[in-house]
């Protein structure tokens, strides 16, 4: 390998990624790509050693240091996205890049797994070639990439339709005239033209053992699905723009108009993207209550959990409720009866899972029963941890609503839609 004649260590100060890996939690390497010179395995080995040390793969620290490189990882459903970085790079730059790579892969292949990587290795290769050149991010917008590299489903559909007699890959039509807007490709064609907005609001909540709320917060996202031809210019106004705080916006949104008029004006990327993220500063009522009562004496214990809805409109329903109770290793068995839903206790993990598909109108759900212990209870026993997940479709807890969507610069008819969902984020109850 020839070295640059310049003195010093020029590469050390350049922000770039040396190698990318995708590995499983057991250390199988699914994909690897090296952007600069030889394959540095030391960083990978150090990382795999760190994975072997922890009980849960999600507890691996995101950034490790190994001799002269940093190893940054992002964990996604059993797969680690790994970047080996040399020199001084902003850590969040690497984390965000890996996050983007994950988003692109999920967008293309739905799941990121050993199977999906193998089945689509041709596409994976093409993507890695375009998202990063020479260790620097190049084209990272899923919508733009789709203009160069066909997604597997698209390819299959096109082949099915035309029987292979015409060009099937979208990239064949790519004219190399990358658009002036970095997030949107040119010559997008859709029929019908549609644009949908989804408010996804997440309630984080920490409740103490007396049922008092210690902290609560609402984080929301406005996701947009855009299938619009040409160069549409979209304007979205809100019914009450004072409802949200701490906004962060997709780069396509015109910042000055947002600051002045509290509306979103933008030329959208093609496909699904997060238009805006926000949090809600004012106090909101938590729409679900979960009240565990747990007591131990000697070799046994009693538990009762009450849960229900609180202060949501009569026409909204709570769905997909999962309440989990994580017990200490001292717990041997748990006998529980629920008046609604199913409760299952996993002997190995000591986790009780109570699942309710949909909350009825009349009955208030209750779970009760006994707990058996291996040793008598002592005061240093790990307290059971209760957490809950749920969602309320067609409901925005902050009250956010889109008032109007207008599309300029294009004349075609557009289907527009708006949906909301409120779901539990990190929802923990102490006992």
């Amino acid at each position, binding site marked *: *390998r*020839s070295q640059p004649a*310049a003195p*010093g260590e020029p*590469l050390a*100060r*350049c*922000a770039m990624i040396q190698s990318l890996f995708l590995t499983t939690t*057991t*250390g*199988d*390497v*699914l994909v*690897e*790509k*090296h952007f600069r*010179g*030889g*394959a540095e395995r030391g960083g990978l080995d150090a990382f*795999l050693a760190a*994975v072997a*040390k922890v009980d*849960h793969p999600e507890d691996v*620290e*995101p*950034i490790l240091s190994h001799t002269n490189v940093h190893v940054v990882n992002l964990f996604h459903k059993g797969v680690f996205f790994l970047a080996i970085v040399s020199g001084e790079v*902003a*850590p*969040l*730059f690497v*984390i965000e890049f890996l996050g983007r790579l994950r988003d692109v892969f999920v967008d293309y292949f739905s799941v990121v797994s050993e199977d999906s990587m*193998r089945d689509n*290795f041709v596409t994976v*290769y*093409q993507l890695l070639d375009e998202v990063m*050149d*020479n260790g*620097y*991010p*190049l084209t990272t917008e899923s919508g733009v990439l789709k203009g160069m590299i066909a997604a597997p489903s698209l390819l299959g559909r096109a*082949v099915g339709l035309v029987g292979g007699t015409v060009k099937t*890959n979208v990239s*064949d039509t790519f004219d*190399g*005239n*990358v658009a002036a807007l*970095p997030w949107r490709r040119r010559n997008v064609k859709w029929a019908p033209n549609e644009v949908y907005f989804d408010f996804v609001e997440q309630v984080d909540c920490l409740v103490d053992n007396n049922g008092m709320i210690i902290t609560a*917060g609402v984080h929301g996202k406005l996701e947009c699905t855009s299938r619009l031809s040409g160069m549409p210019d979209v304007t979205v106004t809100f019914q009450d723009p004072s409802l949200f705080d*701490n906004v*962060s*916006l*997709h*780069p396509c949104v015109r*910042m000055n108009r947002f600051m002045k008029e509290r509306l979103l004006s933008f030329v959208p990327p093609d496909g699904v993207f997060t238009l*805006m993220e926000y*949090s809600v500063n004012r106090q909101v009522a938590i729409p679900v209550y979960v009240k565990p009562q747990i007591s131990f004496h000697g070799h046994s214990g009693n538990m009762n959990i009450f849960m229900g809805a609180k202060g949501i409109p009569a026409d909204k329903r709570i769905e997909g409720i999962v309440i989990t109770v994580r017990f200490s290793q001292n717990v041997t068995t748990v006998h529980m009866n629920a008046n609604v839903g199913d409760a299952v206790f996993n002997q190995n993990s000591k986790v009780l899972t109570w699942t309710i598909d949909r909350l009825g109108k009349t009955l208030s759900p209750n779970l009760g029963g006994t707990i058996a212990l291996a040793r008598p209870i002592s*005061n240093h*026993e*790990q307290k059971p941890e209760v957490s809950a997940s749920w969602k309320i479709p067609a409901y925005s807890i902050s009250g956010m609503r889109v008032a109007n969507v207008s599309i300029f610069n294009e004349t075609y008819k557009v289907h527009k839609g708006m949906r909301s969902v409120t779901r539990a984020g*990190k929802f923990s109850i102490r006992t």
Partner: protein
Amino acid sequence: TPAVHRALPCPRRRTRTGISIRVPGSLYPPLQPRVGSVQCIRFTMSQPVGLFVDHRKGEIAELKKQLRSPEVDRDFRAKREVIKRVVAYMTIGIDVSPLFSEMIMATHTRDLVQKKLVYLYISNLADQNAELSVLVVNTLLKDCSDSDPMVRGLALRALCSLRSENLIEYLPSPIKNGLGDPSPYVRRIAVMAAVKLFHLSPEVFRNNGFLQALEERIRDRDAQVMVNAVIALDEALAFKGGMEVTRSTMQLLVNRIRDVSEFAQCSVLAMVHRYDPENEDEVVDMLNALDDLLKSGNSAVVLATCKVFLKITQHLPSFYNDVVARIRQPLVTMSATSNPERSYAVLKHVRLLAQTHAPVFAPDYKMFFCKFSDPIYVKISKIDILTLIADDQNLEDIVGELTEYVTDVNADLSRRSIRAMGVIATRFADAAGFIAESLIEFLDLEIDYVAAEAVVVLTMLLRKFPGEFDTVVPAALGKSIDVVSDPQAKVAVLWAIGRYAREIDESPYLLEPLIDEYEEEQSHEVKRALLTATMQVFFARPPETQAMLGRLLEAAVNDMSHMQIHDVALLYYRLLQRSVEDAEAVVAKTDCSVTEFAEERDDEITDQLMEEFDTFSVIFEKAAEKFVTKKVAPELPDGFGVSDDHGRDRAYSAASDVGAESGVHEGDRELNPPHAVSSNTYGTKAPSSLLDFGEAASAPAITFDPAASVAAGDFQAKWSMLPDAAQFSTTVTNPSTPVSAVEGALASINIKILASGGNPGDFKLFAFGRDSSSGALSLAQVVLKSGTGAVTLKCEDISQANDVKQVVSAALSSL
């Protein structure tokens, strides 16, 4: 070995009978990318199926046939499948080089996917076979002038990725054409191709005027080309500190920052960060122009913007504080996102800022409470922040919250919560009382590691607030001697029993079981602490203790498991023989109190913050080292790990080991008992014949005793007692000087290393030397960072300070 291993590709062969057998991996060595391969990709399958089934040589011949078949040629899908199979074989390490000429033929296609696959094949094969790579140059050169811009771009990228020196002569012309290509896609690639050429041959790069060509691209119509050009120039000019950012470049970059992708925005911000504004107006302009980037949904952009803001306002205190207040909201919000990796990195930045601006983040304290679903590393980062931002308002809530974590299943989290409570207690005298009460309750939980940590922290509080808790805490600590098994904690409890021998009613009887079971004790540190504690209890309550002290001294003097124990026991024995008062004075001097936690000056931390913000250093918390607990560890008896910096804990336990070893190896114990503490501090009272410390005779040039030894504990005791004799700094030429180099330089003048820790170029070491004529000890601390070594000297004989400084700095100047 751990269960985790990297699976080697182990192709399976499906036989005609349908039974799959495993083909030994060694037959098909995996394709190992060699040094020099610039773009290589490999898929490793633990269970190859489908495309990845091995078909052996016969099948390679079959593929060759198919590649040549006119029928396959007519059906692009079939052709693509065949080529896909070739590449699939290649990626699992099967030799597909016999197909080279057919594959080259396959570049003549309008199917871009096929073309890309062939390029992939070419890049990989060329890595292994330089001769073959010459054969593909013509094909690639031809594609570089294809009518399709995508083809031109891909071909140029593939060409420059071959990275063979034989090919350098072919590169400049297509790169030049690429830089002037009408398609921005090609220009983007061409700019990066120029960087690749630079790394292959800087001469060819310069002689062909690529520096100027890239500079022109900074004003390219396409913003991404502009950013690539900036990155490229920065790499090519790295030898003189990277690209220079003038005012007009900065303005150009700022004006176009909204036209590029988020990642390119980060690169632009890194360049803008390099610019020093000339006056306040310019600072304001920059703040206004970039402010809305703080609303970006991409945390990398937000952090890069914060970094610019902090830098340009660092000398304007009012602006600076406004900036910190301004970036609080985005940081706090991002730290609460559901993406734990992002949250972790952001939390580390909050921690860094909270060191100087704790009040800014104090009202948000509830945002840093742990959720069950947080990964452990996020929880630990949050505890660190809670420790820093505790104030009069939120103190009770924070301590209450930390108490919740004490019973967590994760022992590390539990320990850190207790330690955090201790640190908060030392900062708020009013709260120390109720925190001490909580800590005493933790002792009752009877969880080993909780009790151990609580004991250490309680001991720290006793030292920090002498006289405050003398009634309750020592008694509780004494009782816990049965509970704790951790040596460090035992040492702490023994210290408390000795120090509060008069206050703890049953003090002699707490020690008795340990004395009776002396032989079973494994840790020599505990044994030593037991000796000292029993001595102290003896001074306080002689009638009850005399007999057990006798037994203990006898056992310890005869204890050959560790020289240090023998030495200390012998020393005590002789001191007692001579005079009980003298003995009491000597033993009392081994005890010292924590007077204050070291605090850095704000501006020093600010400088450090500038250096570390948005870099990897912030993650590894180099700043922590200088903060809060800097002086705590040296002031405690050895074995105490109360600092919240793991690195230092290790350094100190290492120190004990080194001390112990030197005690063993260099013996000489009759004359220089390792525990002969601080002669000149108790001066005339000490029997100088025993301790062998004469009055220091100052000599102009000092030489050190090559056989000197000092126990780690004594070192620490002295280090905390002696004032700084001299401080100076020295620069080293090699920024990544290894520890061994400094050790070697010091060894050349007979200065011994007690302990060292860190990485090359960034480490800390403690050393000592004993004047060969007077026997006076000099201690030194060397901290090397960014090519500068900061040396702190402490001398028993202060008159030697200048000589020692001269000799040490001369030795270090050789680096």
